[in-house]
């Protein structure tokens, strides 16, 4: 569904994600995981190589066009709209998805309310819909990250360390949430994560990166059994 070749900071990365799959990207700090995601979503321009989504080359498109094709992402460092309410945060994405953002004289309060509420409900933030996003706890902000990304009804959801900075309880809840979302919405999910337990409990396939290069992409067993990966990353396992 998607392939990459030859990047600079990311150099020689190859990744294929099939429809409905949950794929994890792992690798040590600085391996280029976030850079890879930035390239896919158009936040960075690639120098060489190709990014193909649904048989279409998207490597030259600006981020907002890529989003419209059906790719949404959440960020490693919380990246929400801090002065808007939780509801408004998710609504911005829903309005954009429904091509309603440029409507000038209709009150936003009355548009896309059902869709926005249902997203907030599915991630469990509905009770906090009136809170100002910037005043939420870090864990809730990370969940809101995902909620905003869901507003565009993506086919491919990219999660950059969805549980970074969360407490153990929050992490467990977030894992459950991601599993549930994948099932309920039939999402294709691409994520990266440092916590190996999380990776092995969610992912169906894993791509291992190091120094911007793909070492291997394969099933959990294949990755576990790979000598190079064991040496480079999984340590003494």
């Amino acid at each position, binding site marked *: 569904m998607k392939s990459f070749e030859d990047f600079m900071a990311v150099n020689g990365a190859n990744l294929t994600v099939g429809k409905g799959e949950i794929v994890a990207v792992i690798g040590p700090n600085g391996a280029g995981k976030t850079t890879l995601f930035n390239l896919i*979503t158009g*936040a960075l321009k690639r120098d060489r190589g190709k990014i193909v989504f649904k048989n279409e080359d998207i490597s030259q498109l*600006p*981020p*907002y*066009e890529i*989003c*419209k094709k059906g790719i*949404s*992402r959440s*960020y490693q460092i919380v*990246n*929400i*709209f*801090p*002065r*808007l309410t939780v509801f*408004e*945060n998710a*609504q*911005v*994405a829903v*309005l*954009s*998805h429904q091509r*309603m*953002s*440029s*409507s*000038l*004289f*209709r*009150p*936003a*309060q*009355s*548009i896309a309310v059902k869709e926005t509420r249902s997203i907030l409900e599915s991630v469990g933030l509905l009770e906090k819909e009136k*809170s*100002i*996003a*910037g*005043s939420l706890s870090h864990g809730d902000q990370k969940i809101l990250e995902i909620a*905003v*990304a869901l*507003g*565009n009804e993506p086919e491919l959801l990219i999660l950059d360390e969805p549980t970074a900075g969360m407490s153990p309880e929050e992490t467990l809840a977030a894992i459950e949430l991601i599993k549930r979302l994948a099932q309920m919405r039939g999402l294709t999910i691409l994520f990266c994560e440092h916590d190996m337990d999380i990776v092995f409990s969610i992912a169906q396939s894993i791509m291992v990166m190091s120094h911007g290069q793909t070492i291997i992409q394969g099933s959990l067993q294949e990755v576990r059994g790979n000598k190079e990966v064991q040496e480079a990353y999984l340590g003494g396992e």
Partner: protein
Amino acid sequence: MYKNIVYSKWFVVVAAIFIVLFILPLFVPRFFVYILALIYVTSLLAMSLNMVVGHGGLFQFHHGVFYGVGAYAVALMLTKSSMPMWIGFIAGPIAAAITGLIIGWFCVRLTRLYFGMLQISLGSLIWAIVFRWYKFTGGDDGIHGIPMPSLLSSLNNSYYFILIILVICLILMYMILRSPFGSTLQAIRDNSQRCEAVGINVRRYQLGGIVVATFFAGVAGVLFVVLERSVFAEMLFWVLSLEIFIMCLLGGWFTFAGPILGAAITVALRTFVGKYTEYWTLILGIMLILVIFFLPEGVMGFFQGLFKPGMKEAAERGK
């Protein structure tokens, strides 16, 4: 959906204020009627700037240009053309919006301070043209004795006209800021990178915001002509733009009505303190310093913070 607003207590308070403002000219001396009308014009100008500064997060450093273009457009139409007067009144805001579109088209390609610097340069270009082109614009003399329709001949009538237009504009601005366009603009202010990632063409929306804001600045320019019957090149000078910016900061740039308060404070200071000393800006400066230190969200923002818990915290975390 606006129904519940009509029944809220705030609506009653605001309506009461406007009713008082409507009957005020019957009781106060002419001079105060004039000052109030000037405050309305300045308020509309500051509000229009705040649409892009406070709600859009753009460094709109030279907003005065659009005010001046609106005023000059109507002044030139009324003095140099034989077209019906109402066309001149409409020409003001449209000329301002077109200027906004052209200048904005270049500026949105840059961000933050660079955006502001480019706007000052392009705006100053227009100022220089107005200032130098004696034959057409009257240069630094400006244009005086602009004819007005007989309906607007008395000060009280002008006062009512300005107040009614102000109310209409405020309602329109309120609707725009509460619309999907308005909330998208505020989302861009909060986080433009994330907006791109949810499928929003940030530059296009910023340009749209500038056009809307400059349109209202043009309306303010027309109202200035209605009140003063003259225009000056200073309206397009960067000093005035800075003053409007200060009004937004003073009143509270994340609030809807804050700039009105800022405009009222500035105009009152200039009128009443300016009478005694030309250094009235010194007091304005001290006030601004105090506001920045103690009420970083502006005067109105401070009071809003008392009613809306969480906002202050959000602002601090937002940084």
